[in-house]
């Protein structure tokens, strides 16, 4: 966003709905982040056995009947919960909203693995006779499923779809909403990301085979980005959806504004299936900053992507050093240290947990850093305890994923003047 951006192209966040392993609304979640409360627990998964995971305990019957829960998917239930919480939080009079002017843009890392694994397990009990394969499989596994369940639940007749973007998906869904508002395709965007990944054994087994699945005697200590003794990812479920509106629309109805999206960027490493690329990540951050019309010195908080893998953390720190190295006042934190890696929801949850900093001026910490890895030894990292800042005006949110997908958001504290 630049000074000559017309008001109708300015996009603001007016509602937040979320479920995280350590909170089922923004205030509970924020309190957990400030208190250092983890959401990682022991978890049993098919074939793999005991693992660690971030598990959500939101009330799935708050917005769905039992039959709807049974008919749909876990990602659908998570998304419905988040969407309806966001709409309520935004104070929108839903009855009066033209439903054909609402769009649902939901980031996902993957979808369908849970149901496919379940069905294969089910027919294994019947000698793999496919007559026992569920007729629900296709509607549950189509890639738009979680967004479609939101549309069904809220009677939304505008566009709905998911954005497949690996672990950059939370930001990617958000960016799609932003763009569709600017294109006047919709007047209200419900966007962000969701993940049901802990219900598929495959993701645990694959990370284990890759040597990238976290293990620790104390589940709350398992997710430890930037720590020398980190040993991999804690897989989590969760969701976070925002309501985005054009600034004049939000102001006309007197909405509470959490922040204004002033910069965004997505790019691609084009170098490897799984290994990140610090140069491309840095380019992505700089592109987002340029679009925001600000410099790295203007950023107060960087919400890092780091997942507690050996190379991933180091590469991101190289990128952060390249962009922010001359500005040690910038505070870098990490949400995965509390809740693990919520995959498609990660970027959205990580942004949401930092938004209250615009009001309280606090950068929540990165917990579980007993010995900061010298290779991640940035002066910026907020280690173990929250940091009170003078003020927070700009937050930069990183979210990266496999196949070299990078995404960055820059969000500014909203000032009406």
């Amino acid at each position: 966003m630049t000074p000559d951006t017309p008001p109708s192209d300015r996009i603001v966040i007016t509602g937040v709905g979320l479920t995280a392993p350590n909170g089922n609304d923004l205030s509970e979640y924020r309190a957990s982040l400030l208190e250092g409360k983890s959401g990682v627990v022991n978890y049993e998964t098919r074939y793999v056995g005991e693992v660690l995971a971030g598990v959500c305990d939101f009330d799935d019957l708050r917005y769905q009947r039992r039959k709807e829960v049974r008919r749909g998917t876990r990602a659908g239930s998570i998304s419905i919960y988040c969407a309806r919480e966001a709409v309520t939080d935004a104070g929108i009079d839903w009855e009066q909203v033209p439903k054909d002017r609402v769009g649902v843009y939901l980031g996902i890392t993957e979808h369908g693995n849970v149901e496919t694994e379940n069905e294969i397990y089910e027919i294994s009990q019947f000698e793999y006779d496919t007559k026992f394969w569920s007729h629900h499989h296709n509607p549950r596994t189509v890639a738009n499923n979680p967004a479609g369940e939101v549309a069904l639940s809220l009677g939304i007749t505008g566009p709905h779809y998911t954005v497949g973007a690996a672990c950059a998906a939370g930001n990617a869904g958000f960016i799609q909403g932003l763009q569709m508002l600017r294109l006047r395709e919709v007047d209200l965007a419900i966007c962000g990301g969701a993940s049901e990944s802990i219900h598929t054994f495959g993701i645990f087994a694959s990370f284990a085979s890759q040597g990238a699945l976290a293990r620790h005697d104390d589940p709350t200590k398992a997710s430890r980005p930037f720590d020398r003794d980190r040993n991999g990812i804690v897989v989590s479920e969760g969701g976070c959806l925002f309501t985005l509106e054009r600034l004049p629309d939000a102001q006309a109805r007197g909405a509470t504004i959490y922040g204004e999206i002033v910069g965004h960027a997505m790019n691609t490493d084009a170098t490897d299936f799984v290994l990140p690329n610090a140069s491309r990540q840095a380019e992505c951050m700089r592109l987002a900053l340029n679009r925001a019309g600000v410099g790295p010195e203007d950023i107060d908080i960087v919400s890092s992507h780091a997942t507690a893998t050996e190379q991933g953390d180091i590469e991101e720190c190289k990128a952060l050093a390249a962009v922010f190295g001359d500005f040690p006042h910038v505070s870098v934190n990490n949400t995965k240290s509390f809740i693990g890696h919520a995959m498609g929801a990660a970027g959205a949850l990580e942004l949401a947990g930092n938004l209250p900093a615009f009001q309280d001026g606090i950068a929540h910490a990165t917990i579980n850093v007993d010995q900061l890895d010298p290779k991640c030894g940035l002066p910026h990292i907020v280690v173990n305890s929250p940091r009170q800042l003078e003020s927070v005006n700009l937050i930069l949110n990183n979210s990266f994923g496999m196949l070299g997908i990078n995404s960055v958001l820059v969000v500014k504290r909203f000032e009406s003047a």
Partner: protein
Amino acid sequence: MNPEEIRQAIIDILTRIVPDEDLSELDDTVSFREQIELDSMDFLDIVMELRKQYRVQIPEDDYVHLDTMDGTVNYLVPLMRDIQSPA
């Protein structure tokens, strides 16, 4: 299984498929769909559960017999006569 046991088996399946419905007042002579919210996918769940739990195969042409509880039980009696009730 006798007709009463078959009826209970159907009630058990419906309890799982339409968990929000009160089945205690179900009229066995009236179409399921007139009494409870049961769409085509739910109906296929009944067929699937009979297949999974009792290995009963119901050809699509015979679905018409499963409109009411009475019709369903009458249709299933010869197919489930030799099945032991799980209870």
